[in-house]
């Protein structure tokens, strides 16, 4: 049903016109049907700049409805400027309830993190993706990488990881760490730290990835196996800290490092602000 809600001026509900939303939904359905495969779509120019989340915004705009509750995070935090800007955009054009609580949200748009709080069935995690092609930095040509995906020819990435081991003694790749989805397509998890990669595996929530500038959408359906690439003698491992969060004491979460004085004194705090708040409230109660 066309929805000619006029919130935010002369624009359609959730900014995009209904035909565009249908086109995006078709791309999403195809992406869900072929996990990890990059579906080209007719990405539109959004009123926010390319590289600032236009892919995620288009995906969110296509799936969001008035009964949804939206959470937007950037670097794990709800209060980073770009997350605030995107949340304001949807509050304005989609008249949608927003939250900072992971467990209350039905749609979570994210840049660079997966929330620490485990997601549930029925939740949708929308990733903002700058470069959807995991092989791009090894092979700049789209015509080539498309063929490599068609043939499942991923040796070039294994070689690159091997070179890292040969040079550094370990796989030194830290974020945007390549994964294999459902044993078939190699996928860029977007520039999340590899710390978050295990959360992608068999997650009960639907994961949608939107790349606006590159005009690609891909998806990981709920409970789909997602394997981070590695070697038998060099298994995949995640970042570890010797410190704990200075605010909530967590030793399990991804920590951001802050420099707190001119002498370079460092302080570590949770990157996921909602997770940290919840832990602080619990220990305070």
């Amino acid at each position, binding site marked *: 049903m066309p929805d000619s809600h006029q919130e935010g001026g002369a624009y359609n509900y959730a900014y995009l016109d209904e035909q565009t939303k249908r086109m995006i939904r078709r791309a999403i359905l195809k992406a869900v049907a072929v996990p990890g495969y990059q579906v080209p779509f007719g990405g539109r120019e959004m009123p926010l700049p390319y590289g600032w989340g*236009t892919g995620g915004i288009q995906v969110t705009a296509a799936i969001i409805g008035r009964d949804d509750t939206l959470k937007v995070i950037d670097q794990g*935090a709800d209060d980073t400027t770009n997350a605030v800007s995107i949340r304001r955009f949807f509050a304005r054009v989609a008249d949608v309830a927003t939250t900072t609580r992971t467990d209350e949200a039905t749609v979570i748009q994210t840049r660079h993190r997966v929330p620490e709080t485990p997601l549930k069935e029925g939740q949708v995690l929308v990733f903002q993706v*700058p470069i959807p092609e995991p092989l791009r930095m090894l092979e700049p040509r789209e015509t080539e990488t498309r063929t490599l995906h068609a043939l499942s020819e991923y040796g070039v990435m294994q070689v690159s990881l091997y070179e890292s081991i040969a040079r550094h003694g*370990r796989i030194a790749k830290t974020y945007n760490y390549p994964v294999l989805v459902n044993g078939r397509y190699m996928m860029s998890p977007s520039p999340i730290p590899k710390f978050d990669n295990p959360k992608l595996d068999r997650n009960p929530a639907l994961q949608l990835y939107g790349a606006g500038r590159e005009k690609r959408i891909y998806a990981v359906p709920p409970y789909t196996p997602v394997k981070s690439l590695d070697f038998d003698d060099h298994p995949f491992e995640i*970042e570890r800290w010797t410190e704990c969060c200075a605010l909530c004491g967590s030793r399990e979460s991804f*920590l951001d490092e802050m420099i707190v004085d001119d002498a370079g004194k460092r302080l570590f705090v949770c990157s996921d602000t909602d997770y940290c708040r919840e832990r602080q409230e619990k220990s305070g109660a």
Partner: protein
Amino acid sequence: MYVAVKGGETAIEHSLELLADRRRGARDIPEVSLQQIDEQLSLAVDRVMTEGSCYDRELAALAIKQARGDLVEAIFLLRAYRTTLPRFGDTLPIDTSRMVAERRISSTFKDVPGGQVLGPTFDYTHRLLDFALMANGERPAAPTAPVDAARDLPRVGDILERGGMLEPPPEETGAPAQDITRTPLTLPAARPVRLQNLARGDEGFLLALAYSTQRGYGNNHPFVGEIRFGAVPVSFVPEELGFAIEIAEIDVTECDMVNQFAGSHDVPPQFTRGYGLAFGHAERKAMAMALVDRALRAQELSENATSPAQDEEFVLAHSDSVEASGFVQHLKLPHYVDFQSELVVVRMLRAEVEARLQQAAE
């Protein structure tokens, strides 16, 4: 700290207010009007309309005013508006031989039917600052010759083509053109798709690529067959009428570039063409576009494609100023999670090397 743990919202609001304030500038200076921008900065309006893919002088002027004269930002504003507009259909292709030309030159023939018409051009100005404009730019209207709007102006290329010296333009298929603002770019791209991409492409990027072909990176020995600038009618066939009606008149600049081609075993030597078209008066853009269009035909003409300007994927993927500007500037966004990951690994690698060095020293 530009990302406060709390308070990003207020910071953004204040930033927006400051921006609007700076746009207005000193309040004792009169505000610039859209008409002034349209009339007196008309070439800026032309560029914003061309790369914004939207022929509307008033909206382009508004975008320039709102963007404080930053044309790439103005192009972005106009694009973001255009993308929400409903589509009524495709107009008929414009026929530039019906142009009421204000300027028309050929560098391949001394004289051509219809004549060489210099029109308003910077070409023969001496680039001396005109200090008289500092005080007062008023001046009497320039004399102009009467224009015969009824007479067609044959294209130089058409005349050359009749002798078989020049390749004919591609056949009209009658099929609707693929709209690159509605469908994703797939490669290899057909020439109409490439031309759309180039028309929207950043003038500076195309200019540099075109220049590179002249310096040996994919040289194709160009001559300006013709450049013309003027008004052409736009026709549309409404479904309920079934016949074409003129709905508008727009200014365009067209460049037909003629390039050497040695011929091959099966094809006798013949001149080939590159094509450029831009809204308004934009010769630099149209010429650069024509040179790059021709360079991108290297494969089709069995030429060695070894230079950046001949590389379809490289050119088409990087020509768009809105895409490029957004992605380059997104580096301003916080990246501290990724940076933290790097810190963790680099510290670990450094510790391992230091331990190794210490062990070796003992």
